[in-house]
């Protein structure tokens, strides 16, 4: 059967291709949301285009479809490389790939038809949840069997992170979506809010973060052509993130009647996150030091480097805004939207793209279709992310300051309207970047080569490498 065709690295390749296509859809959905903020009546009340449906479609497409698919594709490849063993079953990999993508499609279509669990990032209905859980379980079995059959005795830190992501995401997805309660996907009252934010924060911190860090730990030494500075330090970071990250989601609920002990746990945990973050960044920086020229040249390395920069900023911002006194200014306004874009796209998405551009040529055995197009995509997305951060942060501070001074929500809307216009304009950079990326990646998977770059390659190397 063609869909389940067994080919070396076929699973990783199709996950990466799927990611590029979901990225286009995700950014288009984001643009529709941004348009709603500028001109709410522009699209006329078409039910399947209303903000309440498109917004969760946008967030879940980006988290699971774009970033998630790219991270899982890279993970399938990295496991084989660091364990020196082929993927246990490419056929099982393909099954998990189709279950994953069909579940995403089902979740999005039903959301667009108005079926939602109504909890942030957990909006997909029960059948889609079961599909996602099944896909994670299948990928886990495949990776576990690969690890059991490994030829390399020592598990490199990337494989530890990949396993942690698969296990923890399964757990938080199961509980966060209250899968035992198919009718609502929720429990009730304050405990539901706690569970929901345990999940909401965990999906970034225990799904996207470990997989993105796994990619960085793989790509950075390879681009630098140097061993990792310290494997021991990397493992210290790994174990501390597991201990700390699992219980800090309640920092989203500091202004609510959550028990104080839980708030204290969340705030202290958020500040303590500086430890694992600094071990990752310090370790990778010491590996890159003196070799940055290679990262500026390699498109995959450049994306990863930019992603790590966003990681520093995200993790610096996180503890600051977890302080209750700061949250009075920054919470429940566009500041948080800037932070979530920086975490999901700036950090995890950019590293996922770095992994994609680094790994794809090694899977296909041919260079990227056009490095120039990838370069254009890099700048569009970097500019887009910076613009997004600037405009949403500024708008958020305007909102926060106004509310602290007693302004009503109604009166703050005209104040932030100009920021929403700029936000929609910047969104076009994301859409452009996604379209260029999808074209480039589809052509790369087909084995094509841009004529001008092929000529240049022939001149430099004498043959197509």
């Amino acid at each position, binding site marked *: 059967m063609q869909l389940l065709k067994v080919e070396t690295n076929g699973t990783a390749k199709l996950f990466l291709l799927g990611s590029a296509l979901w990225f286009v859809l995700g950014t288009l959905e984001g643009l529709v949301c941004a348009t709603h903020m500028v001109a709410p009546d522009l699209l006329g009340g078409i039910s399947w285009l209303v903000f309440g449906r498109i917004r969760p479609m946008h967030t879940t497409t980006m988290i699971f479809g774009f970033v998630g698919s790219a991270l899982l594709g890279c993970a399938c490849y990295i496991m084989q490389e660091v364990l020196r063993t082929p993927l246990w079953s490419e056929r099982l990999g393909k099954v998990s790939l189709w279950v994953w993508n069909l579940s995403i499609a089902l979740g999005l279509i039903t959301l667009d038809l108005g079926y939602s669990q109504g909890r942030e990032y957990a909006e997909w209905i029960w059948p889609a949840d079961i599909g996602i859980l099944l896909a994670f379980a299948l990928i886990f079995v495949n990776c576990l069997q690969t690890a059991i059959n490994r030829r390399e005795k020592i598990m490199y830190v990337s494989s530890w992170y990949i396993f942690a992501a698969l296990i923890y995401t399964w757990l938080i997805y199961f509980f966060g979506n209250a899968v035992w309660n198919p009718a609502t996907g929720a429990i009730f009252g304050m405990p539901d809010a706690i569970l929901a934010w345990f999940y909401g924060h965990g999906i970034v911190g225990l799904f996207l973060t470990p997989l993105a860090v796994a990619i960085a730990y793989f790509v950075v030494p*390879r681009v630098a*052509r140097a061993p990792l500075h310290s494997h021991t330090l990397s493992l210290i970071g790994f174990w501390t993130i597991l201990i700390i990250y699992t219980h800090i989601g309640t920092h989203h609920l500091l202004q609510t009647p959550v028990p104080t002990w839980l708030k204290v746990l969340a705030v202290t945990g958020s500040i303590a996150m500086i430890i694992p973050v600094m071990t990752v960044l310090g370790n990778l920086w010491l590996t890159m030091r003196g070799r940055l*020229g290679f990262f500026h040249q390699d498109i995959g390395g450049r994306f990863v480097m930019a992603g790590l920069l966003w990681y520093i900023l995200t993790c610096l911002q996180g503890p600051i805004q977890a302080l209750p*006194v700061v949250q009075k200014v920054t919470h429940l306004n566009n500041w948080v939207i800037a932070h979530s874009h920086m975490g999901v796209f700036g950090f995890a998405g950019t590293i996922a793209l770095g992994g994609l551009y680094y790994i794809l040529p090694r899977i296909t055995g041919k260079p990227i279709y056009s490095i120039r197009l990838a370069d254009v995509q890099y700048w569009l997305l970097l500019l887009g992310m910076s613009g997004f951060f600037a405009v949403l942060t500024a708008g958020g501070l305007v909102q*926060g300051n106004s509310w602290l001074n007693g302004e009503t929500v109604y009166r703050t809307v005209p104040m932030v309207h100009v920021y929403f216009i700029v936000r929609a304009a910047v969104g076009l950079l994301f859409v452009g970047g996604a379209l260029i990326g999808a074209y480039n990646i589809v052509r790369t998977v087909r084995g094509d080569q841009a004529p001008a770059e092929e000529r240049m390659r022939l001149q430099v190397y004498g043959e197509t490498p």
Partner: protein
Amino acid sequence: MNYYAGWLFLVVASLLVSIAAFIWGLRSGQFADQDRARYLPLSKDLLDEPLVAAGSRKRKTNAAVLLLIVLMALAAFAAALLMSIKDHQIG
């Protein structure tokens, strides 16, 4: 306390998984030869790939843009902190 049973179960389950993995790692010698582990992402196929560093102009442009992003973000964080402190003093 029953209200938090699901959440607590999740925290305990996560902790147990971590402890089990750590014990397995310890017993199977995963933390023994850490120096060799540093080299694991590198492989022989890298030797066949050309090693090219970016030119000075490209490096400087890229680094300057990344530095600007950092400065922009730090300014934003400082603004939020100042507003919070000001509000706290007034409050």
